[in-house]
């Protein structure tokens, strides 16, 4: 009988207990995987290569103020700026105010839109069709699938910020990875209908020549408008998105708190099981020792048993988490401006945590077991 076989045999001698322990650890690790995914999406993911070359210019005071239209040409003159388009949040109501009918709607300039958003794919003839029709709108392909939109379909958006109801016709369906689940129409439509929005833009999206140009362009633009009535704030697309995360409150602390609670809970569960199973085996330990096993090898046996159990739990938990995130990102209801992805590194981290928890939880009970005096152990009644 090899050592590893001895460990596995022992780990599953009380099947029910082992399975319950593994499942309990699995659910904790599932949560840990979810939290890691959120953390990665918010703080580690740098977005696509194209996203790293883009920046967003907005009114310094608040997103609720718009910028003058003439800023566009002034910003275009900044060295390193390849293309620039206005992107204005419309915030209209589609059908009703139910959350599942909410999606992002932007007014923009069809002529230059795809020069900035080069990572969005759409057939050439649809691009020209959109540019020709002032009432044209292009929609994200997952959004089109959700609402069953086809080319030529009519979409009515009821304005809330702007007193106008837009009557739009689908002229193109674009694909982007990750899905951005938004629609884009010609901002001129709103400008003509709403006097106070004439010659205005909510934000500007800029494509820089290279990712290295982004911060320099941002500071040049902000300096240019610093003392004007409409000062700007420019930042990379990722930083712009992170501001929305920061608005939710102290998300980092929140995630860390949940993670530490989860890890500690796992530790308790694992320690509990090991304490139970080792106490049962006091007499066996004595037998092992009589057979010539050293204290060190007895300790090793128990610790590896605990590590094996928690690793099994970690693996199951990680896969459950993976499945959950896969299901979530592929569901029609789910809207996220951040790409949620599970990486091999996370699997490693989950297993590492599980292994660590197993190790720590087994140390104290195993140490006590290994110290048992042979005679006392043999007398012990379980």
């Amino acid at each position: 009988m090899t050592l590893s076989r001895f460990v596995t045999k022992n780990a599953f001698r009380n099947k029910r207990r082992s399975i319950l322990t593994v499942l309990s650890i699995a659910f904790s690790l599932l949560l840990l995987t979810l939290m890691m995914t959120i953390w990665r999406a918010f703080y580690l993911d740098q977005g696509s290569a194209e996203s790293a070359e883009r920046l967003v210019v907005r009114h310094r005071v608040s997103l609720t103020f718009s910028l003058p239209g003439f800023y566009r040409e002034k910003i275009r003159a900044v060295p390193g700026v390849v293309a620039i388009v206005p992107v204005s949040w419309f915030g209209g109501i589609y059908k009703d105010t139910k959350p599942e009918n909410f999606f992002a709607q932007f007014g923009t300039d069809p002529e230059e839109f795809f020069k900035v958003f080069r990572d969005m794919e759409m057939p050439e003839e649809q691009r020209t069709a959109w540019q020709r029709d002032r009432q044209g709108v292009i929609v994200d392909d997952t959004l089109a699938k959700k609402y069953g939109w086809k080319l030529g379909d009519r979409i009515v958006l009821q304005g809330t910020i702007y007193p106008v109801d837009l009557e739009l016709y689908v002229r193109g369906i674009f694909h982007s990875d990750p899905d951005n689940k938004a629609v884009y129409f010609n901002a001129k439509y709103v400008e003509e209908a709403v006097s106070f929005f004439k010659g205005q833009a909510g934000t500007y999206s800029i494509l820089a020549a290279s990712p290295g140009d982004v911060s320099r362009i941002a500071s040049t633009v902000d300096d240019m408008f610093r003392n004007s009535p409409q000062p700007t704030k420019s930042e990379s697309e990722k930083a712009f998105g992170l501001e929305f995360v920061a608005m939710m409150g102290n998300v980092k602390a929140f995630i860390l708190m949940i993670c530490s609670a989860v890890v500690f809970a796992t530790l308790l569960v694992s320690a509990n099981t090991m304490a139970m199973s080792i106490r049962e085996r006091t007499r066996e330990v004595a037998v092992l020792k009589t057979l010539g096993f050293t204290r060190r090898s007895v300790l090793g046996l128990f610790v590896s048993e605990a590590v094996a159990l928690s690793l099994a739990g970690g693996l199951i938990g990680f896969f459950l988490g993976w499945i959950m995130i896969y299901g979530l990102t592929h569901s029609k209801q789910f809207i996220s401006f951040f790409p949620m992805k599970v990486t091999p590194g996370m699997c490693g981290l989950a297993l590492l945590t599980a292994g660590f928890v197993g190790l720590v939880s087994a140390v104290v009970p195993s140490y006590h077991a290994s110290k048992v005096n042979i005679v006392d152990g043999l007398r012990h009644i379980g």
Partner: protein
Amino acid sequence: MAIPISYNVRNLRLRKGLTVMTALGIALTVTTAIFLMALLAGLQRAFVSSGNPQNVLVLRKGSEAELSGGFDAALFPTLKVLPGIAKDSHGEPMVSGEWVVVIVLPRKDGTGEVNVTVRGMMPDGLELRPSAKLIEGRWFQTGQREVVVSKSIRSRFSHANIGDTMEFGKGSWKVVGVFDAGGSAYESEIWADVNQMASDFDRQGGYSSAYLRATDPIAADALKNRVSDDQRLKLEGVLETDYYAKQTSSGAPIKYIGIVVAIIMAIGSSFAAMNTMYAAVAYRGREIATLRVLGFSRPAILTSFVFESLLLAMLGALAGILLMLPFNGMQTGTSNAVTFSEVVFSLQITWQVAMYAIIFALAMGLFGGLFPAWHAARQNILTALRG
């Protein structure tokens, strides 16, 4: 006949280590649940206590929030003479045309910039909000570039003490007072004179909203309808209480994440509790058989073990509540989904939250204890006695 409760208590005490560790595991789950529920309770309180049932908020038709509103100041005189409006201290109708903007302020602790609501109001605006009490300095004066800040704004942002100046709009504003809004949504606002504000943000000749005080709550309802039905105005009246109640939806992300986290943790803890209870049953095989021989029925044994599990969970719940109590009243902020700015609220461990936490823990205990107890009750007496 039922097995005495003291039997369970003694058993839990016998296996101290096991009991404490399982209870702590449950306590951790309960702690997380309490934290999330306390957040939501605090948020709810911030919004629910904000509205005054006698106040009617007037917005442009079709706009759902003060920020996205905006109507012509020429409509204001018509609003002012509507019947059913209470009189202010000068004998005039108590109405306030207001401008609401959102500005960015850097957090004191340097963790980034946050959107904060600045509200420009007429002098009656203060009378309309009697719940806001001045705690230091004085109110802003009409025609002056002065602001009063809420207590929580002062503690969370730099340059917000009396005598400091804040930079927004077209220049600097002097902080002259601090008010306490009693944990309502106003607790996240900065107040100033409406005309000064409008000129700073180039919004002269308009208001983003207006507040009317009705003579009583019933008149408020009528006043609301009168505003909405007036064809000349193209405005919409909303009861202030309804307006804020709707904003509680800002807590939706916390709520959904909280439910998912709590359920997953609860399942894990239930399995752990089940493990402990199975072990308890296994240790006591002979004991249970003896009880049966003495005449205790199967249902009695089942109840006894389920009860023991519930006791364990209860211990966990109490430990969890005790662990969280020091955090009661801790202030935090989140983004208001309607106004786009930060709303400040405090963690509220209310009786309701504590009750839910206990129920939540008991559910875990029930789930964890039922199967082991069933197993215990169904044991064969003879084999158990021999074993």
